[in-house]
């Protein structure tokens, strides 16, 4: 992994990077990825990937209305809100 790849990952992850991050993260991530290469030791031909401990299918339920916490409670943790809406920097000029 090089700096360019790290920058791309940081963009995909929506993380800003500092110079210190670039210096510290690159060797750590490279070591982790190299080590994850060990997974290829295992012969996995014909083995189905296991995404979950139980082979469950999605459960369906009746479409019934249920009570949720009131809107003002749900909005109470918003860093910035107005008129019951989340405020973000201008998106459309």
């Amino acid at each position, binding site marked *: 992994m090089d700096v360019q790849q790290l920058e791309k990952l940081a963009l995909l992850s929506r*993380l800003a990077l500092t110079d210190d991050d670039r210096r510290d993260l690159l060797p750590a*991530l490279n070591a982790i990825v190299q080590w994850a290469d060990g997974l290829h030791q295992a012969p996995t031909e014909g083995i189905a990937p296991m995404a979950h401990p139980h082979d469950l299918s999605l459960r369906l339920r009746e479409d019934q209305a249920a009570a949720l916490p009131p809107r003002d409670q749900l909005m109470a943790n918003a860093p910035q809100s107005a008129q019951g809406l989340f405020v973000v*920097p201008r998106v459309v000029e």
Partner: protein
Amino acid sequence: MDLRFSTLSELRTALDAGMVSAQELAQDYLDALEADRLGVALALDPDRTQEQARAAQRRIDTEPAEGRSPLVGLPILHKDVIVTEGWPTTAGSKILQNYRSPFDAELVARLAGQGMVCLGKSNCDEFAMGSANLHSAYGVCRNPWDPTRIPGGSSGGSAAAVAAGLAPAATGTDTGGSIRQPAAMCGITGIKPSYGRISRWGLVAYASSLDQAGPMARSAADCAWLLTAMAGHDPKDSTSLDLPQEDFGRLLTEPVTPAASPSQPLKGLRLGLPGQYFGPGLSESVRGAVEAALSVLRGLGAECLEVDLPRTELSIPAYYVIAPAEASSNLSRFDGVRYGHRSAHAQDLQALYRNSRAEGFGPEVRRRILVGTFVLSHGYYDAYYLQAQKVRRLIAQDFQAAFAQCDLIVGPVSPSLAWPIEASQRINDPLADYLADIYTLSASLAGLPGLSMPCGFGQPHSGGPDLPVGLQLIGPQFDEARLLGVAHRFQQATDWHRRCPPAPGSAGLSFTSEQVVASPSKGAH
């Protein structure tokens, strides 16, 4: 007898006999938590705790003991990745500083419904990512047996609190060993149930296909009470299993095996010892205590046989690909818009996201998000993420093969004793920390129940006081009752679980043991 180091059943006796009120009991623990210097708690709210204690005492005073939950009036601390309506929930992260959940996690609501009194929130690694509690944004937590050492993680605050007599019980969550490993390092008992047993509704998600909550307490019997109250189907969690309600303490009194006798309560029980759990990576001090515990189990009638878990080593890279992948997706919700930290330095939406997250997440969380994004990204998905999922299947199949030969698997929890805080902070080597999870990860990947209980002490190479060693029992899916039954027999034959760390000099409410033993109790064990 110091009530602070009593089991839940002893506290039940004291409450039922009127030797102490629920308010006095809660206050005693609150005082201890306020004076604590180990760093176990992140949030206390004495008024709210006392409100719950008063309500519990009313139930004790008015409801007939018969049919009343054994947990009424007993205090508990909740790990800070579990949301609570009354107490802030930070998940050990700066990004959730001051976050207040508008609802209780399902397991919190269930325990409160049984009358348990919440003492507050316990310290943990940020988003439960860590094995040492060194990744909490709110300061390290220390091991009560030696405060220069880690308590284990990620449920480090929960384990240290119970071990130090600051709470009689606590909740934890276990994604790759986060209940079992700190329980081992602090000398308490903890169980990670089978995946799907306890609702994840209200757990701050780390890796959704692995996360599972569970109880941490002083004995297997206490864990059985708590697990019985916490488990059960919850339609709000699509992965919660719809299984019949169980009394997980039933094998505490009923025979564990058909051949059991009073002197041989484990007769006929086949314990599998994986060679991979006793290899050269296991420290001699841990090995010694574990082997002595195996002799005790043999003495109780259990038969030990070798089993093979050939993919044990691969569980580490498999876990450290799958868990970060799921984390990178789960943690995308922290965007500085709806809740949590928002950067003050952002002119546009992209900068708002990127700066809020970079400022709010700690280094280990950022590392795992980046690794997760990498293994899920175009060109690497098949090579890493899909391959890790295939290895996960092989690991689960290895367990199935082993359980064809044995009833339970036994081994150490961690290859080493609790390590020094200072050295770990100085060296800061994530790979070394990941390797220490080798004995707990595979049960998590397979979704199996795992229990950790104290089985002795070991002397650290670097000097200092002797430190607790944990024994791990892993069972087939849904075999929690048997794990608890076997652990209870071990705890009836040993007193490791009754050992207390050196007190930091504060005395709490106390009674003579005769007073407690002599009092009638419907649930003593």
